[in-house]
């Protein structure tokens, strides 16, 4: 061995030097991820309005972009370039850090068109795998969640703020809505009332409905004869409202406003709005601030990915596209059960169509869950809501057997 080292000592020294040059700490160490992304965007792409936030193991990146959407409601080319630059910066940082990150969510929001936003959600390990050529670029693109949508929360908040502002400026409107905005427009002197929003929380109930929990400070000068009310509602008291906004109602999207206080049977009563608000499930994952509302998990990520893949199967396969129409596809995971609801209709109903639909979707789902080695579920429910609802509930083991062609789809019908 020693003669070998002597003979090749120059080569070994060079090799050692090259290998030693790699023994440095990660380029973006723990605690410097957020700052590094902002710095990269600023220094290399001249984007100085990028905001970052880490929620658990999820990295949130927010960038407001003026003109994100073109008049034809398509993503603006320049804006798309900016999103690419930020995404590249995120990829560079998340692959060269020792911070324990699992997901990233990039939100680009239009500063003009209220509520228009582009969301890119990805799994960090997928980014590494595509760079190691462990998965193809095509597969990688199927694994990213891309949403170009209208955020009902943002648009709803704007509507609420407009309404509260109008109340302060338009006495006629206030007069009309005085029973809703109880009691300030009843006990206050005319033109002295002022409602100021102090906080808004929102929940997306569907892709067009949002629920808002609004806190406000209300000021007024008491009208003669109502002085006794000041004991309960002193000027500058705190009030609360629940506002339901539905953008399906194009002209007047504010569907309902529920105040905390109301007058019934000659007495002032109050509701616990916070509890009511909390009872509703939030279907959205991006908050008003542009960051994820909570730490993302693999179960949720896979439910979203599979629901998108269900759509793409029937839209990208030429044969299937000719035979079937996809109206919608949604996915969620709750208590270890995946539920995929989709609406797929055969164009000319033939026997066996249902089998094709479920067979393709179930095999694809099984393959995706297998590729991610995801074990955190017990059952999967596939529901086709088109026509007479058809539902298949399959266990993890059966899904795996189906994937391996050990069982036939017929046995599941």
């Amino acid at each position, binding site marked *: 061995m020693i003669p070998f080292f002597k003979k090749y000592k120059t080569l070994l020294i060079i090799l050692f030097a*090259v290998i030693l040059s790699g023994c*440095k*700490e*990660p*380029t*973006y160490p723990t605690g410097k991820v957020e700052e590094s992304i902002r710095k990269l965007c600023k220094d290399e792409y001249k984007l100085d309005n990028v905001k970052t936030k880490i929620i658990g193991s999820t990295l949130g990146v927010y960038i407001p972009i003026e003109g994100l959407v073109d008049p034809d409601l398509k993503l603006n080319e320049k804006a798309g370039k900016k999103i690419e630059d930020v995404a590249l910066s995120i990829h560079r940082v998340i692959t060269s*850090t020792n911070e324990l990150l699992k997901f990233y969510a990039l939100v680009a929001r239009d500063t003009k068109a209220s509520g228009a936003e582009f969301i890119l959600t990805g799994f960090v390990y997928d980014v590494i795998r595509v*760079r*190691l050529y462990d998965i193809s670029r095509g597969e990688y693109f199927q694994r990213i969640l891309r949403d170009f949508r209208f955020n009902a929360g943002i648009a709803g908040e704007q509507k609420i703020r407009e309404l509260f502002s109008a109340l302060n400026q338009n006495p006629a409107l206030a007069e009309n809505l005085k029973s809703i905005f109880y009691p300030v427009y009843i006990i206050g002197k005319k033109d002295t009332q002022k409602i100021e929003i102090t906080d808004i929380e929102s929940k997306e109930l569907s892709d067009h409905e949002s629920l808002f929990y609004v806190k406000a400070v209300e000021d007024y000068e008491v009208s003669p004869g109502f002085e006794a009310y000041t004991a309960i509602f002193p000027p500058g008291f705190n009030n609360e409202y629940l506002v339901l906004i539905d953008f399906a109602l194009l002209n007047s999207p504010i569907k309902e406003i529920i105040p905390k206080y109301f007058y019934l049977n000659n007495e002032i009563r109050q509701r616990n709005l916070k509890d009511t608000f909390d009872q509703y499930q939030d279907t959205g994952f991006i908050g008003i601030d542009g960051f994820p509302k909570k730490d993302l998990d693999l179960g949720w990520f896979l439910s979203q990915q599979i629901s998108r893949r269900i759509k793409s199967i029937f839209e990208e396969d030429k044969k299937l596209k000719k035979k079937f129409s996809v109206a919608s596809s949604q996915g969620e995971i709750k208590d270890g059960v995946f539920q995929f609801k989709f609406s797929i209709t055969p164009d000319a109903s033939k026997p066996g169509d249902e089998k094709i639909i479920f067979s393709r979707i179930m095999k694809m789902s099984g393959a995706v869950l297998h590729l991610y080695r995801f074990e955190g579920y017990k059952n999967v429910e596939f529901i086709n809501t088109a026509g007479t609802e058809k539902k298949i509930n399959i266990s993890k083991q059966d899904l795996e057997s189906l994937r391996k062609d050990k069982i036939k789809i017929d046995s599941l019908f």
Partner: protein
Amino acid sequence: MPSITYRKFRMHLMEHWVKIIIAFTIIILIILSIWGMMSLESFYRNLTIAQMPISILLAGLNAGIFVFMYMIFLQGGFTKIKQTTIKGENVNIHWDDVIGMDEAKQEALEVVELIKDRTKLLKIGGKILRGLLMVGPPGCGKTYLAKAIATEANIPFISMSGSEFTEIFVGVGAARVRKLFKKARTLAYGHGASIIFIDELDAIGRQRSFSFMGGGQETNSTQNQLLVEMDGLKEKDYNIIIIGATNAAEGILDEALLRPGRFDRKIYIDRPNLEEREKVFAYYLKKVKYDSDVDIGRLARQAVHKSPAEIENMIKEAALIATRKEKESVGHKELSEAMERIDMGLKHRKHMTKEEKEMVAFHETGHLVTMYMLHPTDDVFKASIISRKEALGVVHHQPREELYTNNREKLLADIKVNIGGYVAEKIKFGTTSDGVAMDFRNAMWKAHNMVWRVGMGDAGYVGDYTIIPESQISESLKEKLNAETDKIMQACMKDTEAILKKEWVIVERFVKELLEKEELEYDQIEAIFREYGKGHNFKKSG
């Protein structure tokens, strides 16, 4: 004039510029690689390091395939030559190692002086030596002498064989000559001088032939390039000495090569004479263990016309024989056997009848006794009745010293020795065998030559009658000349018969010894003759 250190440095640059550029590029690339690695983001850095083993493996594999293809298809390029460049001090063959060619050595010493004192020579306007041609038979130490010149002059030495220039493709040889001289010029620049040694010069130095079919074009172009380069030396003033070695006769080499200014000086390296052979034997015997009674003088006499290489080979062969016999040192017997093996071939015993064997013994004794008693120049070294090749027996004899002419007495003695075998057979058995055919052929050829060509007949015919066209020689003259030849043969026969009959006791003694021992060595032969008061008196060499 730049200093020798600077010149050596420049020479190295000139000689190794490609290697230097490659090394420099590699160093830069390594620095850039390390720098690049350090500036990579940790993910790509780790990726690069992880891929390093497979990258090295693939690079090695690619390089291997490339080298393989290069070797297979290009064979390193047609003009690639195997030049062996050795620094003078590394050749390590000194004057003292050159033995057995005193005259050649003396001349070579002058050459060394000329190389060393070139500046002095230039000052006094002397002619600079450019080429030195060593001519002589193979194995006489031409290469050895050239190496000794390189060592003594302490200058680099490039050695090539003439055959290395020849190639089927026209122009390749010439390109090789150009490369060789380029290399020599670079070395001469750095070291002050250099020697090019071309062995077997005749391979490229033969007289040029001009054929309209284009045959010999390659040899011509190679030689032309050699001539041009040798002339070129004068213009550039490089101190390069070309030493050519050949065993071809002078007439074979092209005249242009031999004219002054090219191979100015010729050294004839001939086979060593007796004294030189003794030195050669002494030199090579020193390298093996040998018995103290080995007579170097006798060995030298025995090895007439042997080259130093043959003598070296003989001693090596003797050492092998001694080893086979499990002897600790080489004795005269082994040396004799080795010489016999080289000269006469291996023994192989044929099964002969007792009568046949007796006849062979008388035949060989006839040669032996006639030679010993009558021959003026040759000594008998061995007599044997063991068959070798086609001969059933042999009497090995050598001249006591190099003789370059034959007088009448020697030729007559040769004839008598030749027919000695026939005479012995006839005296003993009253009949003869056909084993005499070759003896008669030799004897007749000598007698015929004596009369027809060199005027040694008794009748006074002087001149070379063989050059006269046969049609112009009269039948009577032919008859007379042939009668003269016959007369010589008859006279020799008579003399031989007389001597053998006179010494018949000795003949019978030798026959008895040969039948018993099959072979008799010089000492044994000498002892028997001494027994009968006929011994020669050669002193043992010290």
